[in-house]
């Protein structure tokens, strides 16, 4: 015999369910407002002006120009050179920002003494709490050709170079992008190590014990147990750092300025140069460059999500 629930019982339960979820939305409201106001609205605004001939210094209202900005940007050699430079920097930067913290995390994770382990973590986090401008000033001084300590040691103490052929760490030099990458690795070492330490802590110890019982050595355990379990951490770090590496601007402005021959004159610097310094500040065109760069990055991010997908 079929059983039917009396409807008078179902209605109060559904109402309570709906009421509970609308209260959730209330709690989400501040974050939602922030997202809409500080992220969604600017994105839409930039999208809108990318289809116009908007020039910030001119009082005239912008005119719709369709895809003209996008086609000009795609034909702009300065943009492509800038995008390529950012890609090179990212290719140099990413491996270091992943594998160095991973190595350090494994070492710190092996430390049995709790006090020592905490001390190591604190030391690693020191660069992370130094404000960005101070980091840039510090490393700019370290890399200075004449008075920077690196060249002073190389020339005066190790006698590997003289003042004519000493390395040019920043400026118009092939060493510039690696030099900036090294600065970024150092700056983010503690922060990224914490990511991996959290990931390592989540790996069940029984897996390592089983592997040892099966005769696996340290290297085999690393490849077949540790690395696969850290896949989600890799995904987060690679995606986050890919985005930040491709979009670097502050460091490049400090290390290279607006000279277009510098390897630091990337697509983001070009976008800023256009939007706030050149001519009438053609922000419509700069916005189109920004969107093309962002879409290119999104394509790569999608590929990264696929590569680092959960394969369990």
């Amino acid at each position, binding site marked *: 015999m079929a059983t039917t629930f009396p409807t008078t019982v179902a209605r109060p339960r559904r109402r309570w369910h709906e009421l509970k979820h609308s209260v959730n939305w209330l709690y989400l409201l501040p974050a939602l407002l922030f997202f809409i106001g500080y992220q969604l609205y600017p994105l839409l605004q930039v999208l809108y002006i990318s289809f116009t001939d908007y020039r910030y210094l001119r009082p005239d209202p912008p005119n719709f120009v369709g895809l003209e900005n996008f086609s000009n940007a795609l034909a702009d050699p300065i943009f492509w050179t800038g995008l390529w430079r950012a890609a090179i920097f990212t290719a140099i930067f990413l491996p270091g920002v992943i594998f160095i913290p991973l190595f350090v995390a494994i070492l710190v994770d092996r430390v049995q003494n709790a006090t020592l382990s905490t001390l190591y973590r604190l030391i690693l986090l020191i660069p992370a709490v130094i404000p960005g401008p101070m980091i840039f000033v510090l490393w700019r001084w370290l890399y200075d050709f004449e008075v920077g300590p690196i060249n002073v040691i190389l020339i005066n103490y190790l006698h590997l170079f003289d003042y004519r052929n000493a390395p*040019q760490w920043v*400026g118009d030099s092939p060493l510039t992008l690696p030099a900036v990458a090294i600065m970024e690795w150092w700056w983010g070492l503690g922060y990224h190590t914490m990511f991996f330490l959290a990931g390592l802590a989540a790996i069940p110890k029984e897996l390592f014990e089983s592997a040892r019982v099966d005769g696996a050595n340290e290297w085999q355990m690393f490849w077949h147990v540790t690395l696969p379990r850290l896949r989600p951490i890799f995904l987060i770090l690679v995606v986050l750092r890919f985005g930040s590496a491709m979009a670097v601007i502050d460091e490049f402005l*400090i290390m290279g*300025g607006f*000279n277009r021959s510098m390897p630091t004159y990337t697509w983001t610097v070009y976008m800023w140069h256009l939007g706030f310094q050149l001519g009438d500040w*053609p922000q419509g065109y700069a916005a189109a460059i920004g969107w093309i760069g962002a879409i290119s990055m999104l394509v790569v991010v999608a590929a990264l999500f696929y590569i680092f997908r959960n394969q369990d």
Partner: protein
Amino acid sequence: MKRKDEEFLIQELLRSQLRRGEISRRQFLQNMIVAGMGLGGVSVLSSCGGTAPATPAAPAATEEAAAPAAATEEAVAAASGTRPLTPTFYQWIVDLHPGLKAVNESFADLNFQIAPVAGFDVARFVAEGKNKESTWDVYVGMTPFVEMAALIKADVIEPWDNYIPKDVLDDIIPSIREECTVNGKLYSWPFLLDIIVQGYNTSITSKAGLPDTPPADWDEYLANSKAVLDSGAARYGCTFDAHGWRSLCPITHSINTDIYYMLDGDASGVPLYDFTHDDAIAALEIMKQMLDLSSANALQPGTTDGGVNQTPDEVAFAAQQVAYYIKYQNAPLRMAGTWTDPTALRLGALPKAKGGAGSTVFWTTGACLFKWGQNKEKAAEYMKALTYDAQIWKDSIAGSSSGHPGQLPPFLSVNEALQKENADWFQKETWVPLVFEQLKVAKAIPNHAFGLQQFIIGQPIWEKYLKGEVSDPKVAMQEAKDAVAAEVKKAG
């Protein structure tokens, strides 16, 4: 004296008394009525920020007066101000000129601020101007050929003509007044004067057996620099700032000043630097010879302000690694301040090209008046106080605990007073007359919207010749010219 001239003089006298607070607005009007210029007084009051009734400006009697047309309600309220006078300064001016503090203290309720303008960035000013508002009343730090065109175009600043006293206006050195003027109106109140000169370190040149006189021409300059290098007296013979407005352009001016051209289709009416002019190419060739005698990083960017300041040349000169140096005078003065013996510094006029114009480049750092700011009358009083403050000029010319900026006053009477007084401290600064002599022949870079950017765009291209990547300077300079023209046309 004609009736009109009399009335003008009376009006100006009363107006300056009103500005100085010696008389009230009521007294001003009463005196104007007595002088038979009632409606003219109303008109002038409105320009001084008073709430004038909506009567048209008096004809004839005040036609020749400097009183503007009746201001809008917003501008009238703004001119008088509902907040304290709020000037804002580029950080480096505050760092180099300690005398500002005393002047600031003489203005009650002054809301002094540092401007958010690193790297000549005026985006904040423009953003506020578009909203018809301004956090500040006056900005001190504007260089005409750098930011002025953009600020005028964006309708952020207004001319000083309605507020600057006529005697002050007439006191500006003529070539500087021309630099600061656009369409007949003064948009920059000049404050600090810089001229590209040469400096050298006598402790190095004497070691190299060279005379203690500045090289008169480029051949001598290069020969002396080579002698320094060959003798081992210093690491480098000479150095320069790689930015075009500090090297390529002044060296070109030393040969010829008529090296600007009007770009076809450019509606601005302001000329651009002609990279392909024979004398510009000759200047680039001089730079190449200088680079061979300079440090390996001479073409690298500086460490601050988007690479524009704290440049490698300054480091080398401060470290006493180089003998000869060309830059605006405050650079060698400041760098020599770090030497064990700063008196080893000598300054002189930029070397001439044989048979050339013997000119150089000058620019002023000045103050602009925000259109949407307030306290405009007071801003003019403030700038006047800064302009004629003796301590500021003494500290600048003779140096102080803050450094030795060496920037000169752009006003005739101030310079005349310094020379007339001829104080002991002034006599020691033997470079001042030399630098002033150069001003008589120096020329400013035209105030094009791309006045600065043309050199930033062209620099990586002409440097291909300096670095040996391109063997023909004409090819490099043509490419630089084409690149600038393309950017100007892209800008519309």
